């Protein structure tokens, strides 16, 4: 069974810590959903960064990553849009770009890989960027906050920072496809047997629930395509999670969050009631590190997570 590679074993170019991350300053790419319907994710990320003692500097002029959908229209546009974002990060001296969405992670990394490995594509992008005086040199690394927690902060340090352990709350990890697949693009850990989320859940005092649904798809990208299909995908996965004892779910992806939080009510007809509250990754970590729960936007969730937190005596 393949396991997570140790940091020194990982391919250097795509997961390395760059100069800017050694000074704990990171370029921050929040993505569209954290700025629109999941503002609680954006806010809790910033609060978590404070607790971790790192500086997330938002790339405010960055565009959407392409959200995997733009690719269906044109094969080049998402890559060039991301090249523009990377050029901005380079100008700001922020080569280490941090994301908080699985889909952003996968698609920005895919674009970066193509740009850096294919000269023709890099020069195509730079020819267009040149029209407005920008240039991407190829120095950016894109990583998810989840990987930053493990590589830069470290699980031991994270554990030592916990002031409100989760009292064994049974949390089901839900990765979100694009942070693990395709493995050739992400490759930070095994896509078939990942355990970064489990490691974080345990570091903050929770109990990770193992179930087959954790690496499956939430159906977000086809929610509007055909009635009930995405809803059934949510129901199927949450049924598995609950049958394995989960009291809550944690996800590093706001798209998964929208699907899991929004569609469980509708999936109950076919899959039975699950009502598992879904935490954004930074919400639960920030809570454990002492951020006041009322600042985390828990009241924004359709399935209120505060009930299980009361039951576990995490809040009163």
């Amino acid at each position, binding site marked *: *069974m*393949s396991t997570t590679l140790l940091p020194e074993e990982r391919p250097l170019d795509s997961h390395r810590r760059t100069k800017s991350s050694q000074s704990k300053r990171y370029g921050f790419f929040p993505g*569209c*959903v954290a*700025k*629109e*319907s999941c503002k609680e994710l954006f806010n809790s990320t910033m609060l978590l960064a404070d607790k971790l003692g790192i500086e997330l500097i938002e790339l*405010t*002029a*960055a*565009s*959407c990553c*392409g*959200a*995997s*959908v*733009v*690719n*269906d*229209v*044109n*094969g*080049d*546009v998402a890559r*060039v*849009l991301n090249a*523009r974002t990377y050029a901005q990060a380079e100008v700001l001296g922020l080569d280490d770009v941090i994301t908080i969405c699985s889909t952003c992670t996968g698609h920005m990394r895919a674009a970066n890989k193509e740009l850096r490995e294919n000269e023709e594509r890099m020069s195509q992008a730079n020819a*267009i960027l040149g*029209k*407005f005086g920008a240039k991407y040199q190829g120095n950016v690394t894109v990583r998810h906050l989840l990987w930053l927690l493990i590589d830069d902060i470290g699980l031991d340090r994270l554990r030592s920072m916990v002031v409100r352990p989760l009292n064994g709350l049974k949390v089901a990890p839900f990765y979100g*496809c*694009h942070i693990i*697949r*395709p*493995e*050739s693009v992400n490759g930070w850990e095994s896509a*078939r047997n990942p355990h970064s989320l489990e490691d974080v859940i345990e570091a903050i005092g929770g109990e990770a629930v193992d179930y*087959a649904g954790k690496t*499956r*798809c939430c*159906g977000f*990208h*086809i929610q*509007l*395509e*055909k*009635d*009930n*299909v*995405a809803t*059934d*995908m949510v129901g*199927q996965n949450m049924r598995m999670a609950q049958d394995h004892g989960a009291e809550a779910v944690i996800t590093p992806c706001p798209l998964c969050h929208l699907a899991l939080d*929004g569609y469980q*009510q*509708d999936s109950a007809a076919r899959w039975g009631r699950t009502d598992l509250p879904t935490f954004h990754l930074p919400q639960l970590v920030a809570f454990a590190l002492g951020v006041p729960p009322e600042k985390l936007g828990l*009241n*924004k*969730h*359709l399935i209120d997570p505060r009930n299980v937190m009361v039951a576990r005596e995490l809040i009163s």
Partner: protein
Amino acid sequence: MAKITLDVFRFDEAVDTVPHRDKVEVDIPETTTVLDALEFAKAEVDGSISFRRSCRSAICGSCSMNINGITGLACKTPCNTVMDKNGTVKVDPMPNFQPMKDLVVHMDPFWDKYTRLKPYLQPPDKDEEHATERRVSPEDMKKLVAVANCVMCATCYALCPVVSVDPAFAGPAAIAYAYRFIEDVRDGERKERIAQISEDYLWLCAHCYACSYCPKHVDPNDRIIDVKRSAIAERVMMDERGPRHALIVSKTIKQTGMLAETEVIQGTIGRFNIKGLLKVAPLGLRMLSRGKMPPPFVKPIPKVDEVRTIFESLEVPV
């Protein structure tokens, strides 16, 4: 040599109502493939264990099964890469299929989706006499080689989460095989083929990349994207939600730099599709009650002109 326990799913549709499991111990080198381990068990321990196999070298595509929760070709999977710490290898039939006997499944739904493709060339002049062969340049052939390697093992179909909840979806293999004919310069039914695969829910692919585990590196995930692009380029079924969604997402990014959620939902369903909008209204209201609605309009990002320049330079049709 190592002691390996095969934990085998047993079921015979002719006599059983529920499946059971048998544990079979075999003494073999731990680098033995799961298929050879099963062959050994069948020859030496229990001759009634049923599974499909032929070539034993990842060419025939017969032996795909679920091995310790991972679906793939048994002939390409050494036991020591999948067994747990007690040396157990759990084998089950492929998910998304009805079991027939032990590891053998009913493949009919999978073949039906191939048959619907007319998986043979339809040259434009097929009824005329031909003095010469139809030539393809090596350059044109390059595009088709990877898909031509498909051995129809159905691993991708078994892994597909959309198939698992909606068997009407064509599935990754059939769409990749449709690509093989859509992009063949000798074929004369490009548009008809795109329309047919669109009707079989091309746009229901969830972008999950589960099919990136193809044992023959066909990468159906990427071919599905190629077929969608061809569908938009050929303007096939443009009123369906799939193409509308792809175009409205692209359009809002071009206009604002951001994916404007509210506009995307309206644009995909149709601003005047009252029935469709009412269907998403309850969720919208639930979100509204939590103060979770995306803004109705998205403020353009700084230097949004640069984004427009990118779209225009690449002649994106939005």
